[in-house]
C-alpha cells in the first residue's frame, strides 16, 4: 500500500515536469547565483546536491519558493515560472559522475 502511494505521488509529480530550455537554464543557474551554494555543476557545496537525478519538479519548485531550511526564498518576483522551468531542465542534463572505482586516488 505504502509503495503504491509513493509510486502514485512520484507519477503525479513527474507528470508536472515542464519542458524547459536547458541551455538558458544553465545561464540562469549562474546569473541567479544558484551555483554559489550548489556548485557550478549543481554537485553541491554549502547547499545540497541538486543533480544528477533532481527531485521531482513540484517539490523543487515548492522548495525554491518557500524553503523550509536555510536556503533564501526565490519568489516569483525574482525568478519567473518560466525561468524556473529552464533551470530545472538544466539540472536534468547533468550527467552521472564517474564511478568511484574508476578514480584511483579515491581508492587509497
Amino acid at each position, binding site marked *: 500500500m505504502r509503495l503504491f502511494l509513493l509510486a502514485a505521488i512520484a507519477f503525479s509529480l513527474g507528470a508536472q515536469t515542464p519542458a524547459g530550455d536547458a541551455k538558458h537554464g544553465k545561464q540562469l543557474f549562474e546569473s541567479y547565483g544558484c551555483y554559489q551554494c550548489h556548485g*557550478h555543476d549543481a554537485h553541491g557545496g554549502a547547499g545540497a546536491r541538486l543533480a544528477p537525478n533532481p527531485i521531482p519538479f513540484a517539490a523543487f519548485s515548492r522548495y525554491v519558493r518557500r524553503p523550509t531550511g536555510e536556503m533564501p526564498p526565490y519568489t516569483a518576483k525574482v525568478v519567473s515560472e518560466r525561468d524556473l522551468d529552464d533551470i530545472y531542465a538544466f539540472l536534468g542534463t547533468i550527467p552521472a559522475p*564517474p564511478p568511484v572505482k574508476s578514480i584511483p586516488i579515491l*581508492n587509497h
Partner: protein
Amino acid sequence: MDRRGFLKGAAAGAAALATKTPAQAQEVHARPAAPLPSGRALAAETAPVSAAVEVLTADRPGSDFMLDVLKHLGFEYICANPGSSFRALHESIINYGGNRSPELITCCHEEQSVAMADGYAKIEGKPLAVMAHSTVGLQHAAMAIYNAYAGRGPVFLILGNTIDVAARRPGVEWYHSAQDAAAMVRDYSKWDDLPISLTHFAESAVRAYKISMTPPMGPVVLVADSDLQETPVAPDQHLRIPKFTPASPPAGDAAAVAAAAKMLVAAENPVVLADRAVRTEEGRKLLVELAETLQAPVVGGKFPSRHPLSQGGGRGLIGNADVILALEVPDLWGTINNVRDQLHRTTTSLTKPDAKIISVSAEDLYLKSNYQDFQRYPEVDLAIAADAEATLPYLIEACKRLLTGDRKRAFEDRGKKLADAHRQGIERARTEATYGWDSSPISTARMSAEIWEVIKDKDWSLVNGPASRLWDIDKVYRTSTGGGAAGVGYGAPASVGGALANRKYGRFSVSIQNDGDLMYGPGSFWTAAHHRIPLLAVMHNNRAYHQEVMHIQRMANRHQRGIGNAGIGTTITDPNIDYAALVRAMGVHGEGPITNPNDLGPAIRRAAEVVSKGEPALVDVVTQPR
C-alpha cells in the same frame, strides 16, 4: 643602587656633579627614588655634560636581562615587525643572545606576528613571543589577539612603550607611548602588566607565561618600558629570575566524574562531542580509550578519523542520543540547537526532550563579559568545571569500575553497529567526491583528494584549513583549528606559524589557503621565504569573500530584489589576482592559476618537491565556491 646612581657613578661621580648647577644637583638628590628615571632624562637634566665624562655606551642594558628572562622561559622564536620602542630588546636578541632561542622572525605586520604565534602554539602546545609597539603595533595586532583569545591559544606579547614623559624623544615616541597600553586588549587577553623594574619584569614574565599556559589558555601582554630596556644594569644589582613551574590543569571533581560515568555507562545511545577536548598526543590516546571503553561514537575534535567509532553526521547522533558528553565544546548551545537564518529566526532543539547533557569545560572557570565569545548559555544536566584532557583519566577509570558483563555485551553490539556506520560514511564520502570530479572551476573534493595523494605517505601536518573525511588523521598534529573568533586574515600567518613549529620535526606542512584571507596579509609568505619555512599552500580560490556573497544573496532574496548585484563588494575579480605571481615576487615557488582539474595533481607534486627541500610553495587553484 638605582639607575640614576649607577649612571652617576659610571660618569666618574664627583667630576660629573661638578659640572651641574646647584639647582640641578639638588634635583638629582631630591628625587633619588623616582619610579622610572632614565638615562636620557638624566642627560637632559644635567646638561651641559662634558664630552669627557658623558656616558655613551653600556655593557649590559636592561634588555639583556629581559632576554635572559625570555631564554629562561624557553621561547624558540620571537616574531616582530621592527619598532623603535623595543629597539634595545631587539638588539639584545640578535647580538647578546646570538639570535638563538629565541630567534627573531621578521614579520611584515603585527597581526601576522600574533597569528603566527597562534598557529605555532596549536602545533607546539606552547607560546612563542611577539614584540610590538604599544600603540600602533598593538592596534595592528588586536584582531589576531582576539582570535587567539577566543580560540584559547597561548600567545606571549611584549609591548615597547615609554612611560616617562621626560624620557621620550619629541614626536613619534609620544605617538608610540600609552599610559595604559594593554587597556585596548584587556577585554580579550588573559593577563597583562607594566613592570617598572627588571625584578618586576622577571616576575611578571614568569607569571604571565604560567597564566598563558594554564587552561583555558590565552594571550598575555607584558609592557617592556623602553627606558627599562635601555638603562644599564648596575654591576652590583642583584637580579634573579623566578622558577617557572607550570600549573597542572584542573581535573573534574571526583563525585561529579563518578556521576558522569554512571550516566554514560547506563546510556543506550551516548555520543561524545570532542571539539577542543584534546591538546596533546597523550590526550588523544585517552579520548580513544574512553570511546573504546564505552563503544561510544565520537564527533569532531582530534579523534582519529579512521577509527570505527569516528562518526560524521553529528546531528543525527545528537538527535538519537540519550546522553551527550560535551568535552570543551565552545558553542555547546549552538551544537545541540538549530537556528534557522530566515526573516523570523526560529530555534529547534536537536536533542530528545529527555536527553541528558554532560559538559566538561575549563570555560566554566574563566570568562570575561564584554566580548561575546562565550556563546549562548547551554542548559546541561551535569557541568564539570575542569579541563577535559586532565579529567579523561579519571572518567575512564570511573567508567571501567561500573562495567558489568551485560553492559560490555551491549557495548560490543553498539560498537559493531557504529563500525558499520563508519564504513558506510566513508563510502558515502568517497561517492560524494565523484560529483563534479571533472568540473572547472575545480571541486573542493577533487582538490582535497589530489592533496591527499601527495601527502599520504609523508609525515604531514595540515596547519590551516579543513581536512577531508577521507584523510587518515592519526596524530594530534595532523590538524589545526581555525581562527578562534573567525577573524579573516588568520589563515596565511597561522599556517606559517604552524609550519615553523613543524620544521624541527621534519614534518611536511600543508595548508588550504583561502584567497580573501591571503590578501589580508600576503607578507606572511615573504616571512616563510626569508626564514626558509617549508609550507605547501594550496589555494581554495573562489575569487570571492564567498560567505559574504551568500549573506548578500540572502538579503537580496529576502527583499525580493534579485541577486544580480550580490557580487558588488563581495567578489575578488576584475582583475583576477595572480596569486602565484604574487608569491613568486616574494621568493616563493608559485604554481597556477590552475583551472583544469587534470593539471592539479602534477602542479601539487611539483610544489611538494620544493617544500621537501625546505622552501615554501603555493599552488593557486581556481575552485568551486564551496
